[in-house]
């Protein structure tokens, strides 16, 4: 066993999960705004020989059971009738309350899977301001928006840590954070990652959270997600945000286990249990929570 693997898997055991190598199932999400009914696209794909299975915890998500060819090259995909989106990654955008006519910040938007999902949930009303820090990734994001007929997004080449430079106020912010990732999406993850990487990413995430609080209106919602299993990027950061940014953790009704409130001998705020931690099984590893900006923040 590589030292990196041993180090991290021991941590997972301490958190109550025994490491298993897992390959997440490929999933799609139906873009209702372009299809009308999810069952129509399921039938269409079945006629092409693509067998789908409904993902029980998602409204419009399906696992690919069998396909003779890439689901990323069908006419239906190119027409934007569905998007390829990992199952756990479909959760964050669904956690906002009413989305129609809202102004939403998608702070780390590329390659745009969640931006398209937001537009779908918003039925192309209101506005999404989508940011990313790399121009090449914005090209991919723009292609997704065009393919999926998204009409309500404005995209900027901007570091999320500078979001307040836009001088805009938002009802909601989606912070799908740059993170250390997890071993299910990268076979070399254990060899590549160190605890220093995790801490560096956690610090970056705290900077983005701090900036989001500046631009979200009083009482507004922030959905925070990572595909990291490391508590420094998950529960510890949310605990920090509760204590330092005046954010509260809202209860959510979604797939996943309660967030950990005691990790590595640290006792965290009890509201952290409202977060959702998803250990890899049929999905990748994931962490998500919904925060509310208090009405007293400046």
């Amino acid at each position, binding site marked *: 066993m590589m030292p990196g693997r041993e180090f991290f898997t021991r941590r997972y055991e301490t958190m109550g999960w025994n490491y298993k190598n897992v390959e997440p199932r490929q999933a799609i999400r139906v873009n209702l705004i372009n299809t009308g009914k999810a069952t129509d696209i399921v039938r269409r794909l079945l006629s092409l020989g693509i067998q789908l299975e409904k993902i029980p915890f998602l409204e419009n998500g399906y696992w690919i059971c069998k396909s003779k060819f890439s689901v990323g090259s069908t*006419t239906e995909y*190119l027409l934007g009738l569905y998007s390829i989106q990992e199952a756990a990654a479909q959760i964050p955008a669904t956690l906002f309350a009413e989305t129609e006519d809202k102004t939403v910040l998608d702070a780390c938007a590329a390659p745009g899977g969640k931006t398209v999902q937001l537009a779908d949930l918003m039925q192309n009303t209101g*506005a999404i301001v989508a940011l990313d820090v790399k*121009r090449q990734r*914005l090209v*991919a994001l723009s*292609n997704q928006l065009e393919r999926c007929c998204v009409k309500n*997004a*404005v995209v*900027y080449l901007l570091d999320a840590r500078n979001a307040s430079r836009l001088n805009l106020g938002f009802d909601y912010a989606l912070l799908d954070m740059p993170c250390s990732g997890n071993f299910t999406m990268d076979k070399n993850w254990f060899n590549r990652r160190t605890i220093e990487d995790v801490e560096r990413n956690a610090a970056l995430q705290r900077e983005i959270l701090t900036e989001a609080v500046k631009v979200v209106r009083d009482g507004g919602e922030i959905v925070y997600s990572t595909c990291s299993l490391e508590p420094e990027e998950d529960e510890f950061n949310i605990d920090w945000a509760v204590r330092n940014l005046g954010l509260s953790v809202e209860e959510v009704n979604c797939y996943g286990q309660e967030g950990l409130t005691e990790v590595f001998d640290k006792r965290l705020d009890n509201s952290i249990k409202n977060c959702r931690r998803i250990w890899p099984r049929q999905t990748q590893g994931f962490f998500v929570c919904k925060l509310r900006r208090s009405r007293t923040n400046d």
Partner: protein
Amino acid sequence: MIETINNFVSRFETSINLDENSLLKKQNRLFLVDENLKRLASKDFFYAGTCLGKTEDGEFFPSFSLLRMIAERKANKVVVDEKTEWLFICGRDIFKQGVIRLQGSRRKGDYTLVLNRRRECLGFGKILFDLSGEREGAVISNIFDLGDFLRRER
């Protein structure tokens, strides 16, 4: 640029009404936005609302959004069978036997949208030979098809 778009659209023997106030230009690309998005799009934006197309060396390249807008109108269109649909998306020209329905111009040199049996827009092409006559081989050349979404990311 609005004139460029109107000229392009007219090649399908139709027209669309674009309000100058709803258009934003960014370098060589043109975007259609509503009032709300216009307020949110400062001069530094990268993409906004619906991209209508771009100009390169004086030539206009439409977006798929613009083609979809044209497809909603009475315009030059051909409907193709499933095999031709796939070949067209792969960048191939269209043979006469793959065309199952025609609307609008059949004249050589005109542009025509290419739709599948469900009337979904797959792209557009240029009529190579009068579509009224019998002809072997390609009759519509592929100018732009949905497969571009895959090719542009390579």
